[in-house]
């Protein structure tokens, strides 16, 4: 019997297949299907503090627009007793998701203010989430802001959230740091229970007809996995925090690679959006089949087996392409 279990954020998961934050898990039916088809945990879509503020301010603005100006139409839109604004809808979703499935439910949060990060983190914990993923989505555009300041902001944030909640906290970050290992270490020391590598950012496109900037997010492709594999392999063993891979995981083989690099879990969204939630079962089958064929007993066994510290040539992760190209050239030359 092959043991697919893994430990992530202190939770024992039945396998390493976790569904990452996406609109798919906005729907309870989808979450149930994810569990049924093999997901071992589900990260809910992010609660965006900015979205809450924008929705609230927008609603206020347009409910007030044109009011109390003209005697015949002192208002234009009927008064409602309440709106599902703020985090209430999200928190209710956390509660319902917890009731709907047995697998762990991981809340996800994107804040804009220090108070927002901490406050909403507590609320997500109170709503029953098993763990929390902080979805830091910060794109510095201010030329006065140094890399050090950005990193310090991340570190402070982790410390504050960790100090306020008891559930494990994962941190989803992007790859754009001058020294990722150092940043990872500082975040680890600040108390992060896991690092999720990497966030994928919206990259606005241009509409050449209208000369307008248009938002754009394309689904991940398998080749994006390589960047993640590289960094997980490098970080594995250097920090206490668990590592998770998200972005570019599409097949059972991708999961295997992730595990071997040192990840505790491999997260998927794009593959499910493309192939349907049932794809989880396919991936799980592929995973089992490969392990069976290659006589692996457990996931645990392979975790980190191809990390930088575990491979024969650790420098492969530092100048991998260059060296391989050279040596293959040399070998080719020697054959001639």
């Amino acid at each position, binding site marked *: 019997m092959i043991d697919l279990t893994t430990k992530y954020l202190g939770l024992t998961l039945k396998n390493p297949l976790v569904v990452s934050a996406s609109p798919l898990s906005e729907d309870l039916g989808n979450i149930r299907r994810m569990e049924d088809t093999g997901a071992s945990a589900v990260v809910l879509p992010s609660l965006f503090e900015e979205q809450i503020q924008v929705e609230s301010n927008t609603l206020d603005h347009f409910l007030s627009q044109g009011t*109390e100006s*003209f005697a*015949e139409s002192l208002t234009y839109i009927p008064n409602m007793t309440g709106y599902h604004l703020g985090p209430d809808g999200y928190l209710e979703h956390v509660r319902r998701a917890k009731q709907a499935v047995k697998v762990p439910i991981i809340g996800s949060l994107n804040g804009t203010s220090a108070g927002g990060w901490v406050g909403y983190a507590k609320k997500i914990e109170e709503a029953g989430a098993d763990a929390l993923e902080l979805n830091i989505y910060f794109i510095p555009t201010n030329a006065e802001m140094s890399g050090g300041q950005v990193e310090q902001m991340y570190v402070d944030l982790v410390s504050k959230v960790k100090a306020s909640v008891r559930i494990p906290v994962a941190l989803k970050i992007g790859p754009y740091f001058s020294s990722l290992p150092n940043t990872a270490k500082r975040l680890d020391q600040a108390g992060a229970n896991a690092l999720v590598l990497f966030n994928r950012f919206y990259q606005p496109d241009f509409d050449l007809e209208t000369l307008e900037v248009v938002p754009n997010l394309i689904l991940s492709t398998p080749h994006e996995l390589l960047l993640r594999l590289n960094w997980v392999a490098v970080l594995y063993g250097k920090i206490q925090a668990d590592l998770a891979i998200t972005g570019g995981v599409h097949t059972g083989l991708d999961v295997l690679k992730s595990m071997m690099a040192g990840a505790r879990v491999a997260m998927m969204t794009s593959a499910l959006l493309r192939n349907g939630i049932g794809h989880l079962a396919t991936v799980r089958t592929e995973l089992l089949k490969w392990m069976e064929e290659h006589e692996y007993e457990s996931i645990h066994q392979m975790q980190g087996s191809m990390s930088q510290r575990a491979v024969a040539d650790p420098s492969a992760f530092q100048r991998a392409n260059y060296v391989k190209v050279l040596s293959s050239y040399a070998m080719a030359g020697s054959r001639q």
Partner: protein
Amino acid sequence: MTRSKVTIDGNEAAARVAYRINEIIAIYPITPSSPMGEWADQWSAEIQPNIWGTVPHVIEMQSEGGAAGALHGALQAGSLGVTFTASQGLLLMIPNMFKIAGELTATVLHVTARTLAAHALSIFGDHSDVMATRSTGFGLLASNSVQEVMDFALIAQAAALQSRIPFLHFFDGFRTSHEVGKVEELTDDDLRALIPADLVEAHRKRALSPDHPVLRGTAQNPDVFFQARETVNPFYLACPATVQNVMDKFASVVGRQYHLFDYEGAPDAERVIIMMGSGAEAAHETVEYLRERGEKVGVLKVRLYRPFSIEHFLAALPKTTKNLAVLDRTKEAGAAGEPLYVDVITAISEGLSAGKAPFTSFPRIIGGRYGLSSKEFTPAMVKAVFDEMRKPAPRNHFTVGIVDDVTHTSLEVDSTFSTEDPKTVRAIFYGLGSDGTVGANKNSIKIIGEDTDNYAQGYFVYDSKKSGSITISHLRFGPKPIHSTYLITQANFVACHQFTFLERYDVLKAAEPGAVFLLNSPYGPDEVWDMMPRTTQRQIIEKKLRFFVIDAIEVARTAGMGGRINTVMQTCFFAISGVLPREEAIAAIKHAIEKTYGRRGESVVQKNFAAVDASLDHLHEVKVPAEISSKFDMRPTVPSQAPAFVRDVLARIIEGEGDSLPVSAMPNDGTFPTATAQWEKRNIALEIPVWDEDLCIQCGKCVLVCPHAVIRAKIYDPALRGKAPATFKSAAARWKEFKEMKYTLQVAPEDCTGCALCVEICPAKSKSEAKHKAINMADQVPLREAERHNWDFFLEIPEADRRTLSLGQVKDVQLLQPLFEFSGACAGCGETPYIKLMTQLFGDRALIGNATGCSSIYGGNLPTTPYAVNHEGRGPTWSNSLFEDNAEFALGMRLAVDQQTQYARELVKRLAPSLGDELVQALLNADQSTEAGIREQRERVHALKAKLAGISTLEARDLMNVADTLVKKSVWAFGGDGWAYDIGYGGLDHVLASGRNVNVLVLDTEVYSNTGGQMSKATPRGAVAKFAAGGKPRPKKDLGMMAISYGNVYVAQVAMGSSDMQTLKAFLEADAYNGPSIIIAYSHCIAHGYDLVHGMDQQKAAVLSGYWPLYRYNPDLAKLGKNPMQLDSRAPSLPLEKYIYNETRYTMLTHSDPEAAKRLLKLAEEDVRDRWRDYQNLAAMPMNGAPKEVK
């Protein structure tokens, strides 16, 4: 039992009672009664029960006639029913009122008494509507204050159930319906005590039921109708005593004692005023004041006007009465006297004859009119009436409150007379609608009313413009009850929330000596003085005002509040007025903020809190200099070159001084000159568009979409350029046929509203900086002077010769002079571009009938009208009849034009020998299908008139009078969806079926915009509107298809923002089609809840999503064997949600009821799919040949 004190307005007071003691509420929106129905709808949506534990059902009908019919049916079937209405709406209920009363059916109509439209419409208050119902058999009960509204709402219902006579409970529109006051709220137990179960049971037992069937509503013949009509007498005879019993019962339960006639004043009064409504409170206050000074005066407040109890009336008058003045808030032209006056004379005459009067000789009785259309009725006027009564020969049938220099009916009023209590704080606030001033003041008056022992009153005066509208709030509070049902004219606190008002309005006119003046100023305490006009400085010095400034804009902006300075100014008001200790006041303001905005989210609350917290640090008292030092004064209201009528009359109205205009200044039949909006120069835009002539491609889209006609284009001889001001811009004209000419795109800087629709639609972007377009917004103030000169020069450039233009091209249409300009519609209005386009194309020969609504308000609300004339003095002629009859009204115009044209043609033939055959044939056979043809016909008519001038026969004179009808006329009916889909649909349908050449333009905003966003049958599925708070469950009515079903009606559905070409074609074809035409025009609206700068983008999205397919159905094509249906837009390519979720009317449902939003979205998507399929099928139908290709 303790009753809570609430600070609410009259409408809410009535609704709070009516809702709790009824089951069926059938309504139709009409100002000023709409809020009663809206409250009821809100509570019903919130599942609030009535006193029997069931939730009343609220239904919005298609008209007041419909509401009355539904009410009648509900009552007949045994329910407790109620409705709310006013004015023309009440008139539409009259037929049912006769029925309901004739059948002795208990119900109550709560009426905000409002002026009936006569020479003009007015939304304001008087008793002309109520007086029109005197003969219906309804009991008429008047309440005078917000507290009385609540009390009488209950008394009326109880009295109706006891007496079986239905009641009309009325209170003054706006003055009472919209006055916010502190009242004691009646509890459910109070309601139960007055509405005993046995009365309800009796009502139910009289119901129609197949379980105990009866027949009601028979037709009767001369033999018995009369006798049957007299059977009700015992009920009417008993009714007054019944009402008094109810009032006594009310007093025993609640503690407030009312009588059918309440007398206030000296027991030995010799002079007594008799009146009803809110004015009686001002009279009450004056009587108290005069009594304290030893005068023997009194006022008799009439509560129960019908049935009129002579006995109770006489018993209420002091025996000492020698002089009576009866004041009527209505005018009954041609009558022996106004209704109450006539009733009083009858009552006294009968009383004296029967020996039942308290006095032995006939007192001297005079009658007078006051307060029509909410005209102010003040203690000074009351005093004038008392003074008149003392004269040896007092004027009868007088007026008070105006200067009648025509028939000299008016009493002289000493305007310095005041009864204001020095202990009452009187505060006036000048604000903009958009800055939130009124909302904050409503909160303030609630705080004062509910957190202190003070009595409190708030009344709010609004603008008749919808863009840049000014609001004036009048707040009173103090230790004594407030009877002051009139505006504050002696204020001890004046706040001006907008600095720019100082040069337009004399805001300190009402400040009393020693008052406080609070100014929102961008200038600090040391700089502000020299930035103010001399008039302001003079008042501050002469009245020794304490003067405070705050840069509220800066505080609000920092707090993230944008231009909403309301909470900042409110905090300053509390700090300065000292009505509460500062800490308490701030806590109360914050509490009010939480109550008002809490449901909109924490971030909204927090930014308001931030504004409150930052306010007082920015509040500064100004050390007032001793001298007037300013180098400028208030701006003249209109330019000196304006016509005399504009200078002498309209300018006074613009200044807010219309009250001072005498009768002689006003036209006697409601006829006004057009082309007057051009003189207003409102300067409301903070930013205006600036043209980049190098980038512009001269497409004309900005000119087309401008809702206010402030951006215009001309082509002209380059030689003219030499006379232009230095900053006047021009470019080579980009027309093949005009390539030697110059082109200028010019903005009217002082008329622009700054909506920026033009910039948004502009397709030309800079190749080096994408955000820079061919027009860009820039601050108005630095541009104002230069652009004003440029605009004046631009107007002098001759208009293009219409004959040389291709009217089917948007590019050419920009060169046509708009004859609709600078309306007061909302900035960025989606309706006005269509109207403007119509006037560009046909304005010089157009007659317009306009249904009541937004378009009649921005089209015809004084002081000025946007309808304009061309250089020949021709332009649209315009009138508003009613809301419901507009299609018929326009049809009448068409019939008249056609009839006169026919007569003119006959006369031309008859006079042929004198006129010459060539001219006669040319006149009769003219082809007027082109601009050139119309121009030639005009010239022929000119020649005809010249010839007629030399012929002295009667026929020649007749022909002279109707000769102009030989030039083709374009008759239009304008109106909104409330008219076309609901109240006016029956008439519209009839007009479409008539085959006559009437063009109908439906400005479809999908709600009743003018009355505040109530659902119409045009409201789309899933959209939230008033009376559809849960999202409209049913789809929009397909008015276009209904019209198409006739086969001979030209029908077009257009959206200018999606296809301006298609819109243009539709207008041209509708005019050209010799039969009925209807254009249904997508009109984005402030009621949709998004920034109107994106209005045209939303129109595009509506079409792309398939929600609003563009089509034209032209019966002329069928005559050619072609399919008359042409789909002008493509199959849906944008998900519906990408269109609808840009608008708050849809998104709010996702916040308030996400499940319903999902369900309705799905159904709405199906609607789109189904409708598109049907249209496609229709467009693909074979017509004498192969199926039409569908793209």
